């Protein structure tokens, strides 16, 4: 109970009654018995296994396909809360696309001095190959996953903008599917907005971004996966399947008559839109990493000629780079002319001497992240780190300060999970998925809620023992 005082619990902010979005659920929950619900929990696991929603763990036995643990208590967001998030995220995504266009063309924002030029010039996420390139339809980030955290009734922060290849949307869809199967009565009682149209929206969004002058009658869309051993292979296959698109690998593709073409039972057939789940670096051995076996030699030349849409565009990583993150409020204001609706988490850039000094003084209270790291690796969570870990990290930080940013340890909100003893609060974050096409932005009401299953843990990444929850956005 000590915890509930320090952290905002989205269900029981006040212990005596559920917060309004959770009222209906709580009423239902009070009528259920714990044993029955525990049984449902294991049913959910069997369900996930049988449909094969697994992820491969790198470096482990290939046969070892893991499940991301699923918790059956939903994370519920009210219509009003969602409306604000939607506006904030849409604003952010527009700004990101405007920024990407600018940074690969005239670089007005640098000329205006709103971002220091060295942050761009010396950044690995900035792709010189993209300078002057115009993506078909003008869209850079067709799919964005914005990571949000919450600390109070009205306090949402953007933790990270995933503008490269955000993953996890298959869990959003399958978590809902599972909940519908297990608890149909909840969905007849409560007004939960559906998420199931995401694959069709994705397909439409990608088709709308297709290049002009294709020889195909209608846009041919394919999903490019690194292959069956990739940790997110399930998601790649899932999305291709639900969109009715082909799932292709490097070996299926080559450049044929100036177009990207896939090898079919009847010869090569041109592709218009490639939703690629392969990182920039591996996309084209002729233009990027020459050792890549995952890409298509020459695809960048086709791209530059405007004959293929790559989703997302190469070089979008500069927009979600951690070195740039702290400038996002300026970026948003610069391109939209309005202040950011959703705030950033306060961030110290360790490259700046004053900030570094502050961070070094407060290491035990802060979260320090590598600028290019991801997945919860290579970071220090001050409050839970040992003295020894902090000392070791301090050395790394002093050696290469510009490689790090630091943030206060946020009092992440909690949502209950079902444990053996009943409900218990655990920290969560939220990743809604946004689709951008030349003429519209679509946001599916919901997203992926990741939950740290370990008591007190603030790290929600699945690679670090996190689980997921179904995310409900309530209708009006």
């Amino acid at each position, binding site marked *: 109970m000590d915890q509930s005082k320090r952290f905002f619990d989205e269900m029981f902010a006040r212990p005596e009654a559920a917060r309004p979005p959770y009222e209906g659920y709580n009423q239902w929950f009070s009528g259920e018995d714990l044993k029955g619900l525990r049984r449902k929990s294991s049913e959910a696991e069997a369900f996930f296994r049988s*449909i094969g929603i697994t992820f491969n763990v790198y470096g482990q036995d290939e046969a070892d396909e893991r499940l991301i643990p699923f918790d059956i208590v939903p994370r519920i967001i009210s219509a009003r809360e969602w409306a604000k998030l939607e506006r904030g995220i849409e604003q952010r995504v527009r700004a990101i696309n405007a920024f990407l266009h600018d940074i690969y063309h005239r670089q007005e924002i640098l000329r205006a001095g709103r971002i220091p030029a060295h942050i761009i010039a010396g950044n690995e996420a900035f792709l010189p190959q993209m300078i002057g390139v115009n993506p078909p339809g003008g869209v850079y980030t067709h799919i964005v996953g914005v990571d949000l955290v919450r600390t109070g009734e009205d306090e949402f922060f953007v933790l990270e903008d995933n503008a490269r290849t955000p993953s996890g949307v298959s869990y959003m869809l399958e978590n809902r599917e599972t909940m519908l199967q297990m608890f149909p009565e909840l969905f007849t009682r409560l007004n939960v907005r559906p998420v199931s149209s995401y694959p069709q929206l994705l397909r439409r969004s990608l088709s709308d971004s297709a290049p002009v002058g294709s020889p195909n009658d209608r846009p041919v869309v394919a999903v490019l996966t690194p292959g069956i051993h990739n940790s997110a292979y399930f998601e790649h296959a899932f999305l291709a399947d639900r969109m009715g698109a082909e799932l292709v690998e490097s070996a299926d593709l080559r450049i044929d008559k100036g177009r990207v073409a896939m090898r079919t039972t*009847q010869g090569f057939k041109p592709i218009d839109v490639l939703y690629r789940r392969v990182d920039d670096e591996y996309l084209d051995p002729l233009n990027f990493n020459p050792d890549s076996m995952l890409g298509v030699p020459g695809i960048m030349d086709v791209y530059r000629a405007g004959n293929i849409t790559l989703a997302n565009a190469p070089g979008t990583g500069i927009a979600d780079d951690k070195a740039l993150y702290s400038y996002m409020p300026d970026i948003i204001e610069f391109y939209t002319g309005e202040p950011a609706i959703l705030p950033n988490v306060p961030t110290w850039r360790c490259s700046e001497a004053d900030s570094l000094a502050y961070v070094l003084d407060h290491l035990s209270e802060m979260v320090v992240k590598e600028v290019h790291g991801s997945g919860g690796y290579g970071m220090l969570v001050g409050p839970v780190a040992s003295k020894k870990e902090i000392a070791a990290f301090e050395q790394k930080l002093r050696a290469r300060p510009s490689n790090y940013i630091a943030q206060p340890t946020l009092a992440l909100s909690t949502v209950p999970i079902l444990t053996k003893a009943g409900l218990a609060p655990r920290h969560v974050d939220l990743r809604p998925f946004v689709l951008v096409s030349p003429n519209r932005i679509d946001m599916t009401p919901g997203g992926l809620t990741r939950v740290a299953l370990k008591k007190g843990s603030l790290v929600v990444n699945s690679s670090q023992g996190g689980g997921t929850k179904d995310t409900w956005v309530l209708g009006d």
Partner: protein
Amino acid sequence: MMLGKNAGGLYWMFRYIERAENIARLLEAGWHIALTRSNGGNGKGANEWRSILTTAGIDAAYHEKYAEYDSASVIDFLLRDRDNNSSVLCAIEAARTNARTVRTALSGEVWEAINQCWMTLKSTLARPVTERSLYDTLSSIRHGTSVVRGALHGTMLRNDIYAFSRLGTFIERADNTARILDVKYYVLLPSAAFVGTSIDNAQWEVILRSVSAERSYHWLNGGDVSPYSIAEFLILDKRMPRSLAFCYSKIGQYLALLEQDYGQRQDSQILSDRICMRLRSASVQSIFEDGLHEFLTEFIADTSLLANHIETDFRFYR
């Protein structure tokens, strides 16, 4: 039109499923013989096991690992040995891996069926199968693969995806039936010793059991068990779903579907039509006159050539 890789994946998925079933069937036949005729010590039982391993094309691999042909070792090797690519466990795993690669081409039900089959067998075959649980294990293999087949029939579009799946099944089956006959062809030869007598019970029993056709054979032939009628049944009888003629009528049918769909006649269709024609015009007398072994050897080689043509014509590659 579909990805060549997916066409290949489907074809191999169903070849492996068929292989797993065939191995289980051979094992069941061998086990039956071992139980009913092993009184001669290591004599007959061992011979049967050996010919079963030869039929499956894995006798050499077995011999590298074991010196004796005892039931427990053979059963383990056939069911779950990871060194044996054709073991049921490996075959189902290969089928499921192929299914994962071609998931977008499969209906949800087919995918779930093969995934479930793999999960069940993976846990059943995690430990050596005891004599007591052998029967249940074999049923569970049959059950698992039957559900996949049922889902395929019930939920898949009858297009090229279906054609490649079925081609995999029937190429594997034709090859398997021909091998069963070839390993035993000497039994069926009318030699001086057999003239006027029925062939050795154990021998025909194992042949018919290996193709799960003991009862259907007797139903069609009454009590008459002769080398001619067994060979005719397994080679030429189009009612028998594992006969060479039946397999080739299906192979011909699905290759014709692809020819029509793709508007192109290729090497595989030409060769398959030739083999079909030969099977249609052959009689069991002419096969025996020209040499059963020669006939089967040529058939196995042709089927393997056809499999190669299919891979090239439809741009499978792995």
